[in-house]
């Protein structure tokens, strides 16, 4: 049996680093316990990374099982439970969910996306979820298109992936802020000789007018009356990209590529998070 102890801040790069560690068991019937009991913060990345870890465990251990221990803190337990609902087969969720997560928090629970058609189906689901949550029409269209294309980008461009990419979408402050997280196991950027330099070229290509969906969504943001921030974590590379500027940094090595798109109403101030050494 493997035991993975998760604690503290399980968001963004921390979530990828802590959850997607290398498996230590070769037993086909191996059980893994993902103990999130001491976790104090989660986000869409945490849910996507956990869902990916579950899929990976089942692929590596054909009869393997997964036990997820929910956070002790009631609201975190409710959030994580909602983001992993329904849990996949051979996954047991342990812990109590005594309260509801914030309204519409788990807009799209963590969902593996096998191919481009699954990405379109995810788009349809996202549209319905946004309408159900009462998100304004223009932002609904923007969030739907962004979710669909980010998922498809991971499907199409991840090099040598071992598992399907996973997408999760959350909302906060009554739907005024939406976060889309896509975690994939592609090795193209993460295992390149200089992931930071690779990420640096992404905004440059968009500025040069080369087609690319990330550049498009930043351009579309103004017309859709939203503010958009894109964060990418791949290997040791980090990129923070807004319509006004971009910066790259170096961090601890993370497997695969994680893209987080934060979409806020125009009035919301998008605060850049710390990226470590900037460049």
């Amino acid at each position: 049996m493997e035991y993975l102890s998760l604690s503290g801040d399980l968001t963004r790069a921390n979530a990828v680093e802590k959850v997607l560690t290398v498996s230590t068991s070769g037993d086909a019937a191996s059980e893994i316990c993902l103990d999130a009991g001491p976790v104090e913060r989660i986000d869409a990345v945490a849910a996507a990374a956990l869902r990916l870890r579950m899929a990976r465990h089942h692929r590596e251990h054909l009869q393997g099982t997964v036990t997820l221990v929910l956070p002790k803190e009631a609201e975190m337990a409710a959030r994580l439970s909602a983001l992993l609902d329904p849990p996949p087969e051979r996954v047991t969720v342990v812990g109590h969910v005594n309260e509801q997560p914030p309204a519409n928090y788990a807009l799209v629970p963590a969902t593996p996306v096998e191919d481009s058609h699954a990405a379109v189906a995810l788009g349809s689901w996202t549209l319905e979820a946004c309408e159900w949550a009462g998100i304004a029409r223009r932002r609904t269209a923007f969030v739907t298109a962004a979710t669909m294309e980010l998922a498809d980008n991971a499907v199409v461009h991840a090099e040598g992936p071992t598992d399907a990419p996973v997408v999760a979408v959350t909302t906060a402050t009554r739907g005024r802020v939406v976060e889309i997280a896509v975690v994939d196991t592609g090795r193209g950027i993460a295992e390149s000789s200089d992931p930071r330099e690779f990420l640096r070229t992404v905004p440059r290509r968009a500025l040069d007018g080369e087609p690319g969906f990330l550049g498009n969504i930043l351009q579309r943001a103004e017309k859709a009356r939203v503010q958009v921030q894109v964060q990418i974590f791949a290997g040791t590379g980090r990129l923070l990209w807004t319509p006004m500027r971009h910066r790259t940094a170096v961090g601890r090595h993370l497997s695969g590529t994680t893209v987080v798109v934060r979409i806020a109403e125009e009035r919301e101030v998008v605060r850049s998070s710390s990226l470590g050494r900037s460049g």
Partner: protein
Amino acid sequence: MSVKRDALAFKVPGKVLGTRVLGQEVAAQLRKRAGDGQQDLLVDFAGVQVASSPFLDELARTLRAWNVDHPDHFVVLMNLNEDVQDTLELVLERRDMALAEMTKGTLRLIGGKAHLQETLNAAQELKVFTAAELAAQLELKLPNLHQRLVALEAAGALVRVRPAGAPQRPVVFQTPQPVELAACS
């Protein structure tokens, strides 16, 4: 003078449209429906709520190729909502393209520069015209009009009509008429 035309209406299937793969599939359906291109082409987006830029890019490239292969026929998009229009505008700007679109009985260009829209408006008033007549309408010199006519033809918003009678008669142009298009859709 009036020139009677046939049109084929292609309904873009679905409510949420995204990814290049789906764009290529819908483009292939469109090419199959359009067949040998003996009719004008109306691409109807009624019911489409969201269309992403990669999807629209695939469709736009197909329509551009269709325009090149069938210069005698119009291509008009219909019933695009505001979001799809905005996204398509971005896609067409990036490709340096324009396409004609009809909403509520009005024909306009998406992706084209302002002077092209002005030219299309004047052409709409004349319906069927020679280059000299349109130049007079716009108070332009004839050579200055040439590039505009070429751009509108590439957008599928203008076609040359083979003149009846003696071959030395001047070339006549025609633009789509919203009333006729609405009847075909």
